[in-house]
């Protein structure tokens, strides 16, 4: 167990709340008709993005998927980057070339997601392979949902990482649903961890709504990897508290499932923990809230002020020079 300082706990709280606010703001922009395309919410899953990414070191890499805005923010992106991306604006990280969380930055150790799920597992494995070849103490983290574990590329990537004993951590987000397909129609084995074990990959299952549990499991796994251990999976049990995207009302989810998980909201749980242990004063909490509101306000203003890109920007940049 890694002991967290009070400041680190406050950081975690800040990131959880910021992640939630970014999502809420995106929904608001969507309803105002300012978002181009859909909004893919990480509502209810913030503890996974935040707890895992916060446990990493600066030299590490993450390969997020669409609901991991929280992890991307911890790696140094700002809410404005998400707003700009979702609105297709010129000053976004991809300048309008791609949407939503589909952006990355090697300097921040973030590989941009693509829409074909499972593909990033072997890309992250390749980053881990480079670390092994160059003898660098770097781990690569690939985020995957339960649905992605049914793809061929997921299995190929897992197997390669296992055979080559690569420092690859799979953060599995088992949120119960892949679009409208429940997990029991996704896999017969019942858990993502079971799938990992079939490749000889060590796997644990944790409460994905407990940010500290996710943090500690990530910290333990990556610690073993830095000492030469092979790939591992941390399966995080959670619930996608919305539809696949804003257009999807998720009526296929029984209401009592939402009710059950709403009581287990990750921010609520963490607030209870901090209050019970007296780790955060009311003043500190409201200072964090105010900071977040200010940042969201500034970043929305910045993003809304950014123009759409010139259409001709579609050209160019297809090839790297040299």
């Amino acid at each position, binding site marked *: 167990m890694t002991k967290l300082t009070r400041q680190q706990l406050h950081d975690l709280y800040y990131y959880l709340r910021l992640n939630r606010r970014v999502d809420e703001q995106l929904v608001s922009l969507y309803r105002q008709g300012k978002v181009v395309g859909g909004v893919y919410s990480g509502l209810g899953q913030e503890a996974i993005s935040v707890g895992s990414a916060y446990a990493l070191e600066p030299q590490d890499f993450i390969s997020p998927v669409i609901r991991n805005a929280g992890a991307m923010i911890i790696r140094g992106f700002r809410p404005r980057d998400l707003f700009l991306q979702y609105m297709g604006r010129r000053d976004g990280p991809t300048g309008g070339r791609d949407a939503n969380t589909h952006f990355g930055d090697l300097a921040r150790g973030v590989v941009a997601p*693509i829409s074909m799920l499972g593909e990033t597992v072997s890309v992250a494995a390749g980053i881990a392979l480079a670390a092994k070849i160059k003898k660098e103490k770097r781990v690569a983290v690939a985020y995957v949902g339960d649905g992605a574990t049914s793809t061929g590329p997921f299995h190929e990537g897992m197997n390669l990482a296992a055979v080559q004993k690569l420092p690859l951590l799979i953060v599995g987000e088992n949120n119960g649903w892949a679009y409208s397909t429940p997990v029991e129609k996704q896999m017969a084995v019942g858990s993502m961890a079971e799938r990992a074990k079939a490749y000889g990959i060590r796997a644990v299952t944790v409460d994905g709504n407990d940010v500290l549990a996710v943090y500690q499991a990530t910290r333990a796994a990556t610690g073993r990897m830095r000492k030469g251990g092979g790939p591992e999976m941390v399966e995080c049990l959670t619930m996608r508290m919305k539809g696949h995207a804003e257009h999807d009302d998720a009526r296929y989810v029984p209401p009592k499932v939402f009710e059950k998980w709403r009581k287990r909201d990750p921010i609520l749980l963490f607030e209870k923990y901090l209050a019970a242990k007296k780790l955060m004063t009311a003043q500190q909490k409201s200072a964090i809230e105010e900071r977040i509101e200010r940042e969201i306000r500034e970043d929305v203003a910045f993003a809304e002020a950014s123009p759409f890109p010139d259409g001709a920007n579609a050209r160019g940049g297809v090839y*790297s020079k040299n």
Partner: protein
Amino acid sequence: MTYLDAIRQGIWEEMERDPSVFLLGEDIGAYGGAFKVTAGLLEKFGETRVIDTPISESAIVGAAVGAALAGLRPVAEMQFMDFIACGFDQIVNMAAKIHYRWGPAVPIVIRGPSGAGVHGGPFHSQSNEMWFVHTPGLKVVMPATAYDAKGLIKASIRDDNPVMFFEHKFLYRRIKEEVPEDDYIVPLGKAAVRREGLDIAVITYGAMVWTALEAAAELEKEGLSLEVVDLRTLLPYDEDAVLASVRKCSKVILLHEDTRTGGMAGELAALIAEEAFEDLDGPIVRVTAPDTPVPFSPPMEEYFLPNAQKVVLAARRLAAY
């Protein structure tokens, strides 16, 4: 030196020159690859730089992309280019679009044997280069000579973009020529005129370069002069060289081993029609394989493949137009 040895020498030199170059693929280490292109490289460079992988084309390409993002220059072997379909998504959706979407260079080479003529049947004989020519962000290379095989593989390894390197398995041990020991490259995107001619330009690439030269030698006896242009790189291809030969000869045959519909010839025909319509003295003629899978049995494969005789017949008809 054979075409195959030239590829190996090119890879060898690049691995010696640049420690970030490494290889991954199926059976490429101790076994030296199904065609022995990588023979001896494991012994020379060790298993951290010559990596045998599981039978997982998607993971091979994906891991190559990841390693490239982390600063290495992977060269991934497909045991047969036919098998690339299993890793297709990683190439066309991952590798090809990264630079455009978010900026990083993806210096990977995906190489392997393609093409027919060795009775490999439908899954070991395809000319599937056009799957990738239609994907912006990739480069597609296909050498015809041993000199080019070495120079182009070296240029491909040094290129900062994903390069699809199609070797022709029929040429592996059939083409032998003097290849300089020196460090040289053949730049990507530049065609070569293999034979100067006046009457008909034959634009082609890969093994068909030799077919075109054979036809040209035969037609010379009849007083018909063919110019043979070897594209060498299909994406981006050398438009200037194509148009120059068309303008010079005013008649053109587009020749490839690939099937007809959607083949490179269609793209070249469109370019010529747009840019050199006034220079033409006859119809643009295609000589290609028919639109079928590559058949297995020798008489059927022979029927399927373009050959010198088919080029000769097409050239005579075109000359008489």
